[in-house]
């Protein structure tokens, strides 16, 4: 399969990249790992007139802890997350998600930032970032602005990013000293998209839930925050009753469709079971 012709740019600075994006408007696409964009171009679902390859911009591949939170540069590959000691414990939702994304070869190229900007409702990072309350940094002609991931997704493959903006960083806030989380994914085989995925992230204060994040993959037009379930947990002890109720509310928040991967009823039930399991794992992680 052959993509349509395009002009190819490899800028070495964000400013240079921004100028090219401004020149081409919505006819340009940013190329990071390319593991979603290039297949779309081969299928001619996407035919950008210009590709702006940001792999030549230095400093975008940093993954670091800062002020108790995380900074994830736009070019951090899934494989870098898979091996990172930073993404354990309090940030277990991220560390558990990374090795479940696609397959090992794709993870060598694909990026966290690219995955978010692509906004596939079956993407895994979107749910994880919703659960941990992350925000993205968008660099544009007027400088940087931050967008909470909770407001980032407009619909399938559609985000708040403007054509002239580049997602440069993801910031994960400090969840406090006691926090835990995980990502559970049901897939038919390695490399398949999620039938259902559930990200769970809980901050504890004084033995009860401070903030709970629960988000769902593959069961809606975007990654979905299970807001009612999150709110029901706030201030509660994470006991069987609270977990059961949150799982029921998360299943209610899901908007699954019956397809080859499963029926609506089945997927909803998986959301319930995964939310339960995820909360139990978070409770264990947060008690360490």
């Amino acid at each position, binding site marked *: 399969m052959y993509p349509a012709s*395009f*002009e190819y740019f490899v800028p070495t600075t964000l400013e240079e990249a921004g100028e090219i994006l401004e020149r081409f408007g919505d006819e340009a696409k940013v190329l990071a790992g390319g593991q979603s964009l290039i297949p779309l171009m*081969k299928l001619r679902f996407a035919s950008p007139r210009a590709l702006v390859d940001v792999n030549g911009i230095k400093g975008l591949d940093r993954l670091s802890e800062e002020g108790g939170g995380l900074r994830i540069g736009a070019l951090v590959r899934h494989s870098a997350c898979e091996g990172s000691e930073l993404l354990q414990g309090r940030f277990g939702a991220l560390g558990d998600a990374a090795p479940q994304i696609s397959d090992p070869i794709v993870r060598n190229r694909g990026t966290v930032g690219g995955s978010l900007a692509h906004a596939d409702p079956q993407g895994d990072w979107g749910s994880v970032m919703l659960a941990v309350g992350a925000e993205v940094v968008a660099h544009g002609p007027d400088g940087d602005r931050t967008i909470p991931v909770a407001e980032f997704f407009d619909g399938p493959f559609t985000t708040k990013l403007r054509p002239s903006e580049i997602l440069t960083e993801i910031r994960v806030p400090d969840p406090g000293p006691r926090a835990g989380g995980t990502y559970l994914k049901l897939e038919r085989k390695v490399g398949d998209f999620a039938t259902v995925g559930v990200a769970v992230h809980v901050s504890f204060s004084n033995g009860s839930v401070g903030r709970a994040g629960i988000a769902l993959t593959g069961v809606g037009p975007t990654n979905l925050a299970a807001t009612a379930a999150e709110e029901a947990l706030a201030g509660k002890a994470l006991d069987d009753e609270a977990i059961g109720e949150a799982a029921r509310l998360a299943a209610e928040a899901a908007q699954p469709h019956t397809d080859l991967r499963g029926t609506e009823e089945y997927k909803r039930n998986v959301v319930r079971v995964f939310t339960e399991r995820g909360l139990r794992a978070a409770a264990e992680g947060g008690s360490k």
Partner: protein
Amino acid sequence: MTEVTAAHEGVINRPISVTVNGQERSAIVETRLLLVHFLRETLGLTGTHIGCDTTSCGACTVLVDGVPVKSCTQFAVQADGHEVTTVEGLATAEGLHPIQVGFHEEHGLQCGFCTPGMMLTASALLERNPSPSEEEIRWALSGNVCRCTGYQNIVKAVQHAAAALGGE
């Protein structure tokens, strides 16, 4: 996502220079040329196979700067200034690479279509982890699909190579 539009007119070329199996290779290529087509058609290195062409099967796996990537999901222009290793680069004048010996000795292939990608992924694994467990081998190869062998002998082939390289 960009809306579907008619293919843009004209051919857009760009010069590239890629070190392939230790040799610098320069060419003027279309920007839209995939790395796998550059290797197979421009350079005539047909050891890299095109399987699914949809980023699923791993048959087209090559190493870029030592890291396994699917060459059907990368443009040749992206490899400009980088080092690419294909299956043709595994053997040396002294003989086969230990991973190739492993596949030979352990009957790690039947039709052979997935084998180049398997061997490159496995060689990168052994670079990183000289004595992988069976679990680690299976995990590392989980992006490479084989429809013949059931993977048993592929795993044995990698273990054979690990032992030959002195990892065990």
